[in-house]
Every structure is written in structure tokens, then in C-alpha cells.
């Protein structure tokens, strides 16, 4: 029987395994060095914050794997022998495969900062990182201050985690406003303020120069490049993005660049070897996407697509419309379609923006300034319905259409204040139009 071996039990690896099982009775083994059972990496922060226990992050009960005949193997792959289709583990054991799926995910970026490997320096990606954080920052007596380097989603989550235990946090962001390579200025500015409201010492336009250690090899302070200022701290979080975790493939003939190079069928240059998730790199970008997408949802979708191919239904990985979401402390963020920041704005792209006068709610709708075609939406503090935007993007609706039917798309809990009227009014005034907001209709929503 064909033996499918999957390295990595994150969302990509587990999704591909589950879907192969749905469609076949092939032998499946998932290999992981991190933890025997699948857990949701994105939920690790809630374990530290005390919202959940680690076992709550595991979507399947432990009996699930045996019942579905998916073998779990704990081990660290040291070498891949593509000639003999064999994996060698760091403990000397080995495992042969018929088809190999590489789903090893990412590791935090390190840019060669002096002191980046000291005790007390960590990323926030692996289960180990959480254990390290628990060791070095259990409370604000052990950790008098933490410094976070890198202004992205993981950075702000780490800041939130540390603040939940009242640990003072200094947050170094290279850009002149938080995540403004991705977010429009309006949103980015709002998040800056929100970060400060949570008593996080946000330092914009600031780079790390070096991390200094005490006599025991532990972090004692960091130096800021621009000012030379020294900030004393016990923990440094490095959250300046991630890179594919593929060091173990160095000596193989599997073609890699930053990640494992794959075609649209997620095949590598070696027959019967595939790569999915954070560690897979497309030769050429799909649409406006990046070649490597370290996003939960894309990992899941690659798993779904590859499972089809493995089960004999050769299927291209064709992600649909872009979507994503995140939470910045208390502000929820969702995006559908493409909204580029001012920095990366396309030539034909224009914004329509609305912001609540008092609360942290705002939206940016981007549209084609020539054709008025709706391109994408960012929403902050307002939940929106995925299906509806997906449909509007597929049908190439205009921004007028989106605004007219905006009530259909609202996904906020019942009794929440609705802002569609104000939003549409603002658009009408700015564009001299007369769009009338349509009442929400179940028929349209669930058609």
C-alpha cells in the first residue's frame, strides 16, 4: 500500500492527512518533533494569557488519530534520502515513504543582530517559545521589562500576551507607523493609538542595534540603533517575520529558494515529493499573492488541494479571493479582496474610507478609479460576511453595489450598532452620488 509521510503536523500537514483519509485508505504517517498531537499554533498566545489550557488548543481528541488510522510519529527528520525514498531521524531510526509531503512551516526571522541567540531571546511561533516565555516572563517580578522587535501580527500578539501579566513592554517598529506596509494610514494610525492605550511603549522608526547580555549569558538590555539608547529588559521577542523552516533539506536535491519550490500542483522538482503551507514557495506568484504565504488559511487550502492530487484527482492549487483576519488587542480586523497600503497602492486603486468618530471602528474599501470595480475591503471593529464578499468579488461588482447592499454583509452580533447609513452617506457626499442603502435580506444572504 502507498505510504504517505507528512513532515509537520500544523494546519497544512493535518489538513492534507485528513482529506487523504476522507478519500482513500492509504497508509498515512505524520511526523512531528514539536508535539505529538495537532494543536492550533495561533492559539498558543491564549495559553500564556490564561484564556485556555494547552489541551484546549487541540481540535481533535487524542483517540481521533488512531480511529482514523493516521499514524503519529514523534521525531526530528535529520536527512531526506530522495533516491531510496527514506527519512532518517536524528535518533538514528528511519522511515520509508511512497510519497512525501513537506509541511514544516516557518521559523522566526533573525537578521544577524549581535546577541540574538542569548538566553531570554525568543520568537513566538513554536510551542517551545511558549515554554521559554513562561520560564523567562512568568510575571512582572521575574521580567521587569520585555522588548519586542518587529512590527507585525506576531509582535502585537506577543505584546498583548505580556501585558496580560502586567509586564512593561517596549515595542520597536522599523516603520514610521505600525504595519503600514500592509494597512492604509488611517488604520495603521488607529492601531498605533490603540497600542499606546494598552500602555505599550511603542517606538516607531526604531531599529534594534544589539542585544546585550549579563555575566550569565542572559539578556540584560538592548541598544537602539538610531539613538543609542539602552533599554534594560529580561526578555527580547524577535517577531520580524518568519522564514520557511527547511534547513534539514540543505543537502538534498530538492530545489529550494527561500522555501521549497513548488509548481501549481504543489509538486517539487523531485517526483512524489510535495510541499505545502508556510514552507512552500511558488515559482511564480499566483495573482497578486506572494510566492510564500505564511497564513493559516492558505496552508489549509493547500492541504485540501494536495489531498485531491494524492488521491488521484490531479488538482491545481488555485486559491480564490484573498481574505485574512487578525485581532489587534481589542480591535478585530478582517479583509476581503485586495486593499493595498498607500505604499503599495496600485495605479488604478482608489480608497473610500470611513471612520467612527469615537470608537475604534473603520473601513477602507478599495476600488478601481476608472471602472468603479470593487477591489477589496478592510474592516476594523465591524465583522463582515465572508461568503458575500467572495461572491461580490467573483461577480466583479462595483463599489456602488457593495455600499448599496452593505447591510447584507454585516456579521456583527445582534443588537450591535450599525453604521451602514453613515458609511453610505459619506460616500454619497464625497462622490456626489445618491446610493440608497438596501435593507438586509435573508433571501440575498443565503441564496
Amino acid at each position, binding site marked *: 500500500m502507498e505510504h504517505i509521510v507528512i513532515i509537520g503536523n500544523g494546519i497544512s500537514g493535518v489538513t492534507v492527512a485528513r482529506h487523504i483519509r476522507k478519500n482513500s485508505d492509504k497508509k498515512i504517517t505524520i511526523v512531528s518533533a514539536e508535539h505529538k498531537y495537532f494543536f492550533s499554533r495561533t492559539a498558543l498566545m491564549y495559553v500564556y494569557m490564561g484564556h485556555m489550557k494547552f489541551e484546549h488548543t487541540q481540535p481533535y481528541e487524542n483517540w481521533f488519530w488512531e480511529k482514523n488510522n493516521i499514524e503519529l510519529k514523534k521525531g526530528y527528520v535529520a536527512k531526506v534520502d530522495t533516491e531510496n525514498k527514506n527519512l532518517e531521524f536524528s535518533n538514528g531510526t528511519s522511515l520509508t515513504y511512497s510519497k512525501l509531503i513537506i509541511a514544516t512551516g516557518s521559523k522566526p526571522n533573525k537578521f544577524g543582530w549581535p546577541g540574538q541567540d542569548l538566553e531570554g531571546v525568543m520568537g513566538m511561533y513554536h510551542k517551545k517559545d511558549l515554554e521559554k516565555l513562561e520560564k523567562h516572563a512568568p510575571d512582572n517580578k521575574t521580567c521587569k521589562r520585555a522588548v519586542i522587535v518587529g512590527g507585525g501580527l506576531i509582535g502585537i500578539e506577543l505584546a498583548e500576551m505580556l501585558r496580560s501579566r502586567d509586564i512593561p513592554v517596549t515595542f520597536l517598529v522599523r516603520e514610521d507607523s505600525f504595519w503600514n506596509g500592509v494597512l492604509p494610514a488611517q488604520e495603521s494610525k488607529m492601531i498605533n493609538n490603540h497600542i499606546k492605550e494598552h500602555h505599550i511603549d511603542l517606538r516607531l522608526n526604531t531599529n534594534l542595534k544589539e542585544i546585550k547580555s549579563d555575566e550569565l549569558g542572559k539578556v540584560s538590555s538592548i541598544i537602539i540603533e538610531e539613538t543609542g539608547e539602552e533599554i534594560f529588559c529580561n526578555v527580547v521577542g524577535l517577531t520580524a517575520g518568519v522564514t520557511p523552516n527547511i534547513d534539514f533539506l540543505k543537502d538534498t536535491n530538492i530545489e529550494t529558494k527561500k522555501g521549497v519550490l513548488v509548481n501549481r500542483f504543489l509538486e517539487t522538482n523531485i517526483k512524489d515529493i510535495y510541499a505545502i503551507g508556510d514552507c512552500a514557495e511558488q515559482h511564480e506568484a499566483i495573482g497578486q499573492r506572494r510566492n510564500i504565504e505564511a497564513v493559516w*488559511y492558505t496552508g489549509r487550502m493547500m492541504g485540501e488541494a494536495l489531498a485531491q492530487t494524492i488521491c488521484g484527482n490531479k488538482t491545481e492549487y488555485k486559491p480564490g479571493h484573498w481574505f485574512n483576519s487578525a485581532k489587534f488587542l481589542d480591535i478585530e480586523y478582517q479583509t476581503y479582496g485586495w486593499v493595498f497600503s498607500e505604499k503599495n497602492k496600485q495605479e488604478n486603486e482608489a480608497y473610500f474610507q470611513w471612520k467612527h468618530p469615537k470608537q475604534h471602528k473603520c473601513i477602507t474599501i478599495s476600488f478601481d478609479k476608472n471602472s468603479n470595480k470593487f477591489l477589496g475591503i478592510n474592516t476594523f471593529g465591524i465583522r463582515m460576511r465572508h461568503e458575500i464578499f467572495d461572491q461580490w468579488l467573483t461577480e466583479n461588482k462595483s463599489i456602488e453595489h457593495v455600499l448599496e447592499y452593505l447591510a447584507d454583509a454585516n456579521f456583527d452580533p445582534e*443588537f450591535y450598532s450599525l453604521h451602514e447609513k453613515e458609511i453610505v452617506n459619506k460616500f454619497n457626499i464625497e462622490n456626489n452620488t445618491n446610493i440608497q442603502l438596501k435593507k438586509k435580506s435573508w433571501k440575498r444572504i*443565503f441564496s
Partner: protein
Amino acid sequence: MKIIKNSGLIIFLVGLAIFIGTIFSGTFNLKQAELDSFLQEQNYKNTLIKSALQEAAVTNEDLNIFEFSSRVRKAYQKSNDYYDQQIAKYEAEKNWDKKGEQYQYKINGKPHTLSFNLAKKAGKGFVTENPSLAWFLTFGLGIIGALLFILPNLILLGKPGIKNDGIYHDSATNRGFIAWMVLIFLVSFYLVLYFFADYVVNWTFILDPISETLGGRPASQWFVYGFLYCTVMLTMGVRMFIKYRHNKYQIVRTISVLFFQIVFAFLIPEIMASLQMPEYDFKNAFPLDYDFFFEWNLKSLAETGGIGIFILVWGIVLTLVIVPVMVYFFGKRWYCSWVCGCGGLAETLGDPYRQHSNKSLNAWKLERWLIHSVLVFSLVMTLVTLYCYFTGAQSFLGINSQWIKDSYSFLIGAWFAGVIGTGFYPIFGNRVWCRFGCPLAAYLGLVQRFKSRFRITTNGGQCISCGNCSTYCEQGIDVRAYAQKGENIVRSSCVGCGVCSAVCPRGVLKLENGPENGRINPTEILLGNDVDLMELINDK
């Protein structure tokens, strides 16, 4: 802020300690006149009980409640033992007429009830003399302390938003020492209230003036329970308002359960009592209100004329028409988390423990067996009772009416709903009763599952399987299992509390009453992958 919080905790604990301490205060002894008037009220046909009680309780000794209770119960025993002997004697003599005669002399009811009723007359001391001061030192300090403990959260919790920080680091909310202490307190409270009410007769003295004002009669242990229930719900409701102040659904829902508890379950029945009407909680639907069809209730309703008939008709219409129709439109949440008192306590007092309900598949299996068995049990009991009521028979299909009523009241009414249902909040989560035991929830659930517009909608492909929803589901539903598949959640147990939606960091869940069509939507491939793939799968 921390100082205010801590002093609040201390004041609360002092109030609680005095409240418990009052049990041991005061003295109890009867005057001959008090006993005589009591016996006259009771209209006992036997004379032995008079001498037995006289001997036991008419004394100048200052007895505490436990001594007093013990003496009264002995007198009760003595009297009943005597007539039991008589019965046995005539039985042996085959003197059936004489034997039958003896039964009327036996004292009915539980010994602790007799002791409670006498203690109500016999109590003296600080609490009976200063009920207002006693109220302040117990309820008053408790409320002030609790509010001082809760109100600083407005600032301590930071900006509005879901703040479950540290729940699993805290002994009180992570099944630690404090949780077990709370469990012991709650379980003892229910045991005493249900089975040894005379021991806490002093609590009723604290509330006598309030009860007199509202219902025109002295407080019973059930008045104490009702008053305490409302007080606890209000105070913990304040906590809900602060914790969920960003979430209008939670605010409105909490106001609603508070309103129905205080007005419908507490004030209206009291006012009805003061007007010599039968006390009735208009929102308490059968079969949760399991004694609605008991003969004593039917009799008392029949005797009170118009209002009695109205209640009878209302009760039946509520169960047979209003409940299913409302569930069809809004799901069972309109009752379980907007109206019901049990739900109300679970949502306010129980909110800190909601994360403890077991989410495993085994728990789900147990839940389905248990709750439906209770439903069947309650229906069988009602059928038997009604049959016996109309035919005058003792039993139906070999089931004795009194036996099945007593078993249900004891097992389900007292143990399951009270002792286990609420007492075990800190360990098993706050909806133990609603999830495993409530026959009405089972009934509502059947409607919700098969014929309702309600569902929890999941938002396309946005779930990251983080598990917040499942962790904080008080009904033990593995919400994530559905959300990560993009599948609507249509489960009979969902009470629509809305917390899964509130804690979701990605905005994936929404409680909705939509068209029935497409409500159940098993999905193969989640939204996000290209449509071609979806068609491929669906065509297969």
C-alpha cells in the same frame, strides 16, 4: 484599585461569615400558648403529639436550633411510632376498621418541616429582635463587599473587549482550592435548604419584614432562597455588565434574565400571595415546572376560580404553543438564556465557571442519554398523575402515583436541579442542570434541532481553530469542530448565550434566525479555495 477590590472581598467574607453564623445564634423554646395555637392551626386529630411536643419544646431552657429540632423530631417520631404500633396491632388482630382509623392520627410531612414550623414560632434572640440590622450585617455587607470587589474591574479590565486573562491561572476559576471551597459551600447550602430547613430558620427571621411587606406572611425558606437568588443574580449581573460592556447582545440578554427572575419569578408570586391568589411563576413552563399537573396544584387552581383557570390555561398554552412557536422563530435561547431563572443564575453566578463544561464526545453521549431520560421520566410521571387525578386510582400501569412523584421531586427536583446542578458549578461548569437534566431544555432542544430558524452561522473560511469558542461554551458544544469546517451549528443543546461569538478573535460566529432552507450545510471544502475545486468535490 487592588486595595478596593481586596477590602471588598474582606467585607463580603465578613458578611458571609455572619450570615452563616446567624444559624447558630438565637434561642428556641415554646410557650404553652404558642404550641396550642400551632396545634389548632394544624388541626391534628391525635392528642399524643400534643403531650409529646409539650414535653419536648415547652420549656424555659434556651435551646439552640439543633437541640430544638432534635427534640421536636423525637416527639414526632414518638407519636408516629405509637400509631405504627397500633396499626401493626390491629393488623395482627385483623381488625381492619380500627387499623384504617389509625392512619388519620399519623403526622404527615417531614419531621424537619414540623420542626421548621415550630421553630418559626419559637425563635428568639438578636436576629428576631433586630432583623434590619441583621439584614445589613449579612445581605448588606455581602452586597457592598461584592460590589466593591466587582466595580474596580471597570478600570482593571482595561479597554472594553473580551478579557479572559488569567482565568486558568486563578484557583477560583481553574478548579483550585477556592473552587472546591465554593463547591462545598453551595452543596451544603442546597442540602440544608432542601432537607434541613429548620436549621436555617434564623435566615427566615432576617427576611420576615420584607416578606411581610411583599406577600403579607412570614418568610419561608423558599422566600430566603428566592430573595438570595435575586440578590446574587443582580450582583453578579453587574459583573456581567462590566465584563461584557462592549457586547450589546450580552447586556440586553442579562437585563432580560434579571427582569424575568425578579419580576416574574419573585415579585409577582409574592404579590399574588398577598392577594390570596395562588402563587404562580408565569414564565415557568412545564415540564421544568414539574408539579404543575400535581393534584394539589390542580385542586388549588380549580378552587381559586377565574385566576386559577387562567393560570391553568396559560400553563398549558405556554408549554404547547408559545414554547414551540418561539423556539421555531428564535431558537431555545429565548427561554434558556433570556427568560429562565435556572439559566439566569447560570449566566450570572455561573459565568466565571463556564469554561469547565466537558467538551468530549463521551460527555455528549452521556448528555443525550441523561437529558432525554429525564424528559421521559417527567412525562411518565405527569401521565400517571393525571390518570390518577381523573380516575381516582392509586396507580397506572403498575406505577404508583405518589411514589413516582416523590422520586422525581427528590432525584430530579432536589438533587439534580439543586445540589448537583448549582452546587457543582465550580467544577463541572455552570450549565450542568440545563445540559444534562432539564426536561424543558430537552423538549426545547428537540424543536430547535428539527424545526427552527435558529443556527450559529460560521463565517466562510475564517476560522483558525483556536478553540476559544469551544472552551467558553457552557453547554459543552465543541463549537470549533463545526466552525473549522465552515458548518452552521445546529445543536439541540445550544442555549444561544452568544459567548462563542463574543470570544471569537476572528469574528467567525454569529447567532442568527434565518430561513430554514440551507440551515444545515455540511461542507466538503471551505471557502477560499477556488470554486472549481468545490464543484469538483460536489459533483463527485
